[in-house]
């Protein structure tokens, strides 16, 4: 997708960054299966480092921006259902993101054990599935709608504020 609105483009770039982390996490889980992976392995370490930092920060800022600035505007236009659904998905994703980030941080410090790996794997698997599905919906139903929803001036204000919050 490419978008004429800067706000949509920034959110799309966020999605790409999140997908990269989530996809790496998915590969890690698929490869390790039931056996806890070795965190001293460079690839495992890199994935967990990304997951420990990127997911929590990215999704909390990203979600707050969408809920406060975009869904409200969609709802004012009468397009209630999509915003409400995406909000409920955020509510499901945020605690999962936190759990996975905390689990990744703990694993980076002390490695996975037979006790810590299964709950991490389950939470990560749920996060991965929910996140892919969520991004698919936003890419199809939310970002294209911003082309109509935002005039150039509002787009500039919102995108500048969002960029500033990311720095």
């Amino acid at each position, binding site marked *: 997708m490419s978008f004429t609105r800067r706000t949509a483009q920034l959110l799309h770039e966020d999605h790409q960054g999140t997908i990269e982390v989530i996809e790496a996490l998915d590969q890690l889980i698929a490869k390790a299966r039931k056996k806890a992976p070795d965190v001293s392995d460079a690839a495992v370490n890199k994935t967990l480092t990304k997951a420990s930092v990127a997911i929590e920060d990215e999704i909390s800022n990203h979600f707050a921006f969408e809920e406060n600035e975009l869904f409200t505007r969609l709802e004012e236009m009468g397009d209630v259902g999509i915003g409400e659904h995406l909000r*409920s998905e955020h509510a499901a994703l945020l605690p999962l993101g936190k759990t996975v980030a905390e689990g990744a941080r703990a694993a980076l410090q002390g490695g996975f054990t037979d006790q810590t790996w299964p709950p991490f794997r389950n939470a990560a698997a749920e996060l991965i599935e929910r996140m*892919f599905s969520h991004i698919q919906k936003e890419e199809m139903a939310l970002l294209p*709608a911003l082309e*109509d929803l935002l005039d150039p001036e509002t787009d500039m204000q919102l995108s500048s504020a969002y960029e500033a919050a990311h720095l």
Partner: protein
Amino acid sequence: MSSAFLGGARDRLLPVSIPFRFFVSAALFHLAAWGVLLLEADQLGGFTGGPGPILAATHLATLGVFAMTAIGASYQLLPVVTRRPLARDWPTRLSFWLLSPGICLLAWGMDRSSPGAMQTGAALVCSGLTVFAMLTADNLRRAGSVAVVAAHGWAALLALVGLAVLGMLLVWDFQTGFLDDHAGLAVIHMVLASYGFMGLLVAGFSLVLVPMFALSRSLPQRPGWAQLVLAGVSLASFACGRWTGNTAFNWLALLAGFGAAGTYLWLMRAAMARRMRKRLGLSFVLIRASWGLLGISLILGAALLADLPIPNAPALFGFLLLAGWLSTFLMGILQRIMPFLASMHASGKSGLPPPPSDLTPQTPLKIHAFCHFGALACCAAGIIMETTALIRLGAVFGCVGALAFVGFALIVLLRLRAFQQGS
């Protein structure tokens, strides 16, 4: 939460009952089509047209499975893609209640060679398709964006008008025999229905759905326009060729058809190459296989035009076009979008929506995929070898697979209901 989805007229999400009534019906018609083929397997190999059970099975597939799936998906997806909600909900329900009995009556009439039943069924079906066409045209008319997808939609509607008019003429001709070239018009009707209406919808929606499910980076726009123009040239040339008897038009149609399909497959390959989601699951096994079957159908079309000595080539061509390309593609898409849409309308006790996997029973889908490919292989071999037992075995596979798919659709619905009641 679900009350929000009952939404206002400006909401792009329809009540879940609207797309799902079309999808569940498609699953049931799928089973019916294979069931008829199982009962009348001996008639498939030599089929070249005319009323009877094979024509009935064909229309159970084309109208019952393909059109129902396309209409249900269009009603929900077009407003999202075009960013313009449907003007009203009730005509979508009306179109369903015209189409579903119409398809049953038309198929029954074709099976029994009953002109009255065929005419009444065809009239109901055309009325339902008219409602669909008007709603879709209204939506496309207001769509200022996604021009290439909207243009595919307009072209599909044009093909729909053509195939519906021809269909009505053909049905009335069974009783009165006023057409000079019934067989020639039937071929144009079939090509407009499969490569035209369905093919253009598949090509248009693929530009949106495949990158979305695969999370691909942007697809270039120009090849999308090129595939549309080439498909249009192909369909128009084919109709001219059949109408005038000038074979040059047929070869031009074939060449443009190969160009359109080649461009489409190139775009899909690009979507796969640029995808960020690596594991795409069973649905994409079907979708990818359907791309291969599209190519095979065109190669067989070329062989038919060249009069190559392939046994039962017309029946084989029709079978691989309908049960091969279109059915395989649509079953792949259906098994992806049903849980996807259901998850948007469900919320558990916590008020949170379930992930699509909680709504997706995997076993029926695995049974369906195995049986579907078994059915294609056995029936195709049976047609070529003129062996009824092989076709019947293929139809058994088809029935078991279709039954598994009905099971899948019902389980998705039951799980959705359980989540809704839980909330």
